[in-house]
């Protein structure tokens, strides 16, 4: 559905109704992330764990990499879980119904 159409339904076009502005938010997020990554140069971390050569909590860019990769893989893994776990909305209401519906 076109974002603009719905914006007008309410009698007013909001800033986020324009697709270009959504892209702006995305680029702003990238900029913020770059700044947070750069913040790793500004101070010295003390590694508490020896594992992974002390990179885990003391090295450059660990938290950004872990946050990004972790969240990315979380979603992809959850998406695959749907193949096994997803059923129709009324699955449990159909007490004597077929068990293998999707």
């Amino acid at each position: 559905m076109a974002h603009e159409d719905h914006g007008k339904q309410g009698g007013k076009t909001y800033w986020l109704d324009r697709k270009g502005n959504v892209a702006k938010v995305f680029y702003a997020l990238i900029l913020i992330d770059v700044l947070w990554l750069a913040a790793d140069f500004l101070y010295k971390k003390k590694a508490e764990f020896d594992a992974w050569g002390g990179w885990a909590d003391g090295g450059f860019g660990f938290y950004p990499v872990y946050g990004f990769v972790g969240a990315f893989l979380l979603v992809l893994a959850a998406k695959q879980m749907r193949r096994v776990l997803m059923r129709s909305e009324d699955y449990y209401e159909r007490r004597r119904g077929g068990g293998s519906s999707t």
Partner: protein
Amino acid sequence: MAEFLLSPPLLLMLGSVVLAAAPRNVLPRTVLRALLLALPVYSLWRFWGLDFGDYAQFKLFGQTLTLVRIDPLSRIFVVIFHLAALIGSIYSFYVKDNFQPLVGVFYAGSALGVVLAGDLWSLFLFWEVAAVSSALLVWVRRSGRAAGAGLRYLGMQMVSGVLLLAGIVLLRHEVGAAPGWAEFRNLTGFLEDGGLGFTNLAATLIFLAFGLKAAFPLLHSWLIDAYPESTPAGAVFLSAFTTKFAIYALARAFPGQSELIWIGGLMTAFPIFFAVIENDLRRVLAYSMTNQLGFMVVGIGIGTELAINGAVAHAFADILFKGLLFMAMGAVLYRVGHVNGSDLGGLYKSMPITTGLCIIGAASISAFPLFSAFATKSLIMSAAVYKEYFWLWLVLLFASAGVFHHAGIKIPFFAFFHHDSGIRCKEAPRSMIVAMVLAAAASMAIGLFPLAEMWFGTANPFYELLPYPVHYEVYTTTHVITQSQLLFFSALAFATLMRTGLYPPELRSVNLDADWLYRRVGLRIWDGVAAAFTATHRTGYAVAGRLAAAALETAQRHLGPQGFLGRSWLTASMALWVAVLLAAYLVVFYWRLG
């Protein structure tokens, strides 16, 4: 007597019963509501004036029961339960009917009974009252689904109660009538005093009873099943009490129990996968609750002062921010009629205040600096680091990124932003907004207190409530930067997945969880057993019927009027047969004699 009646549990429970019984013409709705709000306020004020110690004791069947035991661990739960009762009641004033706040306050009273119980019998009593009163809050939705969910919920709560009772009875049997056996305290230590280890059945049963209410993995699905089926206000009350007093009970009885570390670790991780693909946004919050409970369970398992402080502080903060998120989704449910992510979007245009307050809740649960979980969850994370649990720490970090992903972003994004669904509705009712503002303000205060302490040297009233003294600096450069990096890069992953179309769309669906075992497999087994029983019964009935018919026919043949044994015989033939018998008898007699 006043000590009993004015103790927090009884004051709230009896107070709500009296208000419920008062006739409408004597007590107009506004007066009733004012009195209902006055109950938790007065109760907390009274409680605040009491010192640590035992109150409201009485003897029953030779046992001394202690209804109120105040110590640093119970105190903080008493405070937050009163606040939750107050906020929940204000929120629920959006409906004219006062049933929900009345039951909610009664349920809060029973929860206070659990955290103040000084002995196991009192604990059990309030444990059960809480189970029944909370089930009413599921049923109050008055839908078919809520009826079923409420019944399953009550069933699971009763299982917990039975486990607890069995544990208490066994403990009584094993430890004997030694004085103080029923005291509710560190059970592991208590059992070890008696020469019994954790493998002891009594402690295991009690551990499982607590674990069921704390939503341990595989025992968690009652929460996911029932809470989202309740009303907007019902879910707010439900989210506050049962799981949190279970956390209190674990912290009281099993601190430092190492099994809890991995149970908790699992609890933080597995629900976030379900939350990503769940469509019902209040069910997403229920998964998120299991995830947050996992952090608390980990803290109790680590068992150091820092970790227990973290678990308790996080329980306090969770009641506020999870309540806030449930309130925001409840407002959407009330205005729109559903909370399906697949059919919502663009609501920020209609409900800007709710949107803003929901974002505060989202930031709080995600542990953004300045918000509550940043000042509570980090105690648990640091405790894991200090004990050098590397893999556990990685799991908790992953779960922290995950919680931002599903509760921090998914909830506000799919409800209030995303594509415009075209839904135009009114802003949330005033009572809802007031309650949400209170919860949001408290969540922010918890996050800001440590900063104020650092900059201005002001006291941190929240940390002072914790059971152990806090020597912990929250706002260090490393902590602020690393946490922000984790969260913002998690947000970047979400945005990238959305823009590339890789993010799974919200679909109207049900995802199988552990409740499938009893709602589908268990039901099938039950159906199978019932069918087998019916078939056996039918076959048995048929066989028995045929045998009986055959026996009847034979009897009729032999004993009937025409039967061999039934007809009239001649006297002469009878005399003959008697003579034959006599002769046979004589032969046998002489043969035996010879």
